[in-house]
């Protein structure tokens, strides 16, 4: 067919200089952002603790010993429980179910929010009406009370049941936010322009909408992890989870059951409490830094020269 304009002879040898891909630049921005870095370090620290539990605290954390209600000693760094279990060992091992449930439930909830929120809003019409109706119904269902009812009904929610309950009650919040963002974006000229170049519906969602929503999606994911951890801890604390697994929530349940506070056994309550607060705080810090990084206009231009000087700090 026709060639656009005429090719000028000097163009043949033209090549693109290599530039760090966008994802690398985003990570760099993250690391430069103090708040985000602190949050990531704390969170990753807990992930590492959980992974290294067999090394840091070898042995079964549920093992019962004669040393009951011992305050911190050289042997039991964080003291013992009323059944003589090591609190240190329990806190370390307790990281695992808490993070796993938080992560899986967070991922599932976010996936539901995206499918229902973005899918409904982008397609519009009856599909959107149905999606909105479901969001509105589910959003008024109070999450934690429903979980309590379900957990009671299921007789001690296992891990899978707990993840399902958390996801089923958690998705409408994200779905609403993503829906309104999608509605705002789909009317924008650049989405129309993409359609006019022949981009498919899935191509538009994936290439035009998602990149503009990624900070919202990640923020939503982190908030959902926080929500899931909170829900998991609450259920465990109320004894509605599996109280025989060692988790921060079940530690608090047993501490309450044995009236640890009345016995002045602060070492049994404070460590899991601090861990919960630290994980929640770390996620909140990361979330805040995403807000700061989200807008490319607010960060400095990713000029190639700047990147080279990046090592000297800013």
């Amino acid at each position, binding site marked *: 067919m026709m060639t*656009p304009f*005429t090719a*000028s002879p000097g163009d043949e040898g*033209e090549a693109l200089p290599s*530039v760090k891909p966008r994802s690398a630049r985003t990570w760099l921005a993250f690391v430069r952002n103090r708040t985000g870095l602190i949050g990531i370090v704390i969170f990753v620290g807990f992930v590492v603790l959980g992974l290294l539990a067999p090394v840091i605290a070898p042995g079964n954390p549920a093992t019962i010993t004669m040393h009951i209600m011992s305050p911190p000693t050289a042997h039991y760094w964080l003291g013992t429980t009323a059944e003589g279990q090591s609190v240190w060992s329990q806190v370390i091992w307790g990281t695992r179910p808490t993070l796993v449930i938080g992560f899986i439930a967070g991922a599932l909830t976010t996936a539901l929010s995206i499918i229902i929120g973005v899918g409904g809003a982008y397609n519009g019409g009856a599909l959107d009406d149905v999606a909105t109706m479901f969001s509105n119904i589910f959003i008024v269902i109070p999450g934690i009370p429903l979980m309590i009812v379900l957990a009671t009904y299921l007789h001690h929610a296992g891990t899978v049941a707990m993840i399902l309950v958390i996801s089923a009650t958690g998705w409408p919040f994200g779905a609403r936010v993503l829906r309104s963002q999608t509605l705002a974006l789909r009317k924008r000229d*650049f989405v129309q322009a993409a359609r*006019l170049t*022949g981009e498919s519906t899935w191509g538009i969602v994936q290439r035009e909408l998602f990149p*503009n929503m990624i900070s919202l999606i990640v923020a939503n994911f982190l908030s959902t992890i926080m929500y899931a951890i909170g829900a998991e801890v609450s259920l465990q604390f109320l004894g509605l989870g599996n109280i025989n697994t060692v988790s921060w929530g079940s530690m608090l349940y047993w501490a309450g059951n044995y009236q640890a506070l009345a016995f002045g056994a602060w070492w049994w309550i404070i460590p899991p409490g601090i861990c919960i607060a630290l994980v929640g705080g770390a996620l909140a810090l990361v979330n805040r830094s995403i807000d700061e990084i989200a807008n490319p206009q607010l960060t400095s*231009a990713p000029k190639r020269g700047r990147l080279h000087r990046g090592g000297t700090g800013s």
Partner: protein
Amino acid sequence: MTEPEGVPILSLTHVSKTFFSGRRSRIDAVRDVTFHLYPHEIVCLVGESGSGKSTTAHLIMAMETSTSGTIRYQGQDVARLRGRSAHRQYRRAVQMIFQDPYASLNPVHTAGYTIGRPMEIHHSIASASQRNKAVLRLLRQVDLTPPAEFYYKLPYQLSGGQRQRVAIARALAVQPALIIADEPVSMLDVSLRAGILQLILQARDEAGVTFLYITHDLASARYIGDRILVMYRGIICEEGMADAVINGPQHPYTKALIEAVPNPEHLEDGGTVDDTVIPSHPSAPASPGCPYYALCPVSVAECQQNLPDWTELSGKHRVRCFHVADARHGVKT
């Protein structure tokens, strides 16, 4: 100047578009519009804000469906494109440039991606390295040099004029036969407009692209257009060669427009001044007749009742006006 000749590349026949908002209010955005675009010409659709220009563009781009009438691209009814490949072919052949370059580029995509993506979608260039070369060549052609540097720019790093050049390069990327340019310079600084107009002329001259150039500025229409279509409240009231319409307007509305230009010598300036912009008129209640009826100094009773038919004047010049029709009828007998 290119005279219209041969088989039209795009034909609109009796096209109307009515928007219904609420139960009672209806807006006849486009009324009985008929025109033809011939290969390699630049036709300007001029009219004040709200006259239905963008709606006409959206109908052509199949972003909206017409209420009545047919739009044919090379004989093919645009409303009856069936199947994925027919749609793709049409998208490849007909492209659009949007008015606002701040809105029409995705803030997360580099210029290189924006221009290369249409080539990728249509597989018009097979390999990624060939595509990169083509993108660089386009960047050079739209005067974004050095291209290797502009390739990686994000929209926020570009000025309005540069953004519009990226948008033009995107439209050219799939080597379309026809481009609908909806007021492509109206959001730009006056000093940048001539460069964009030049680019459009060049794309026509060197790549043979046909343009429907939408504007509300008479000077740029006169500068760039081979022919002019004057639109008012959904109807096209006059059409003809650009010189003929600007120098010898026949429809009372067109006459009023051209008389209202404060510095007529600026009509020769090619859109680099802002005082040839068509002012907006106060809205009048919708009537079945000529929309200019209420403001027209020479209206007759019939104007309010019926939409006048076309009166052919010399050459390609024609007007939709009872007064002109009557005057010519009078001359003949």
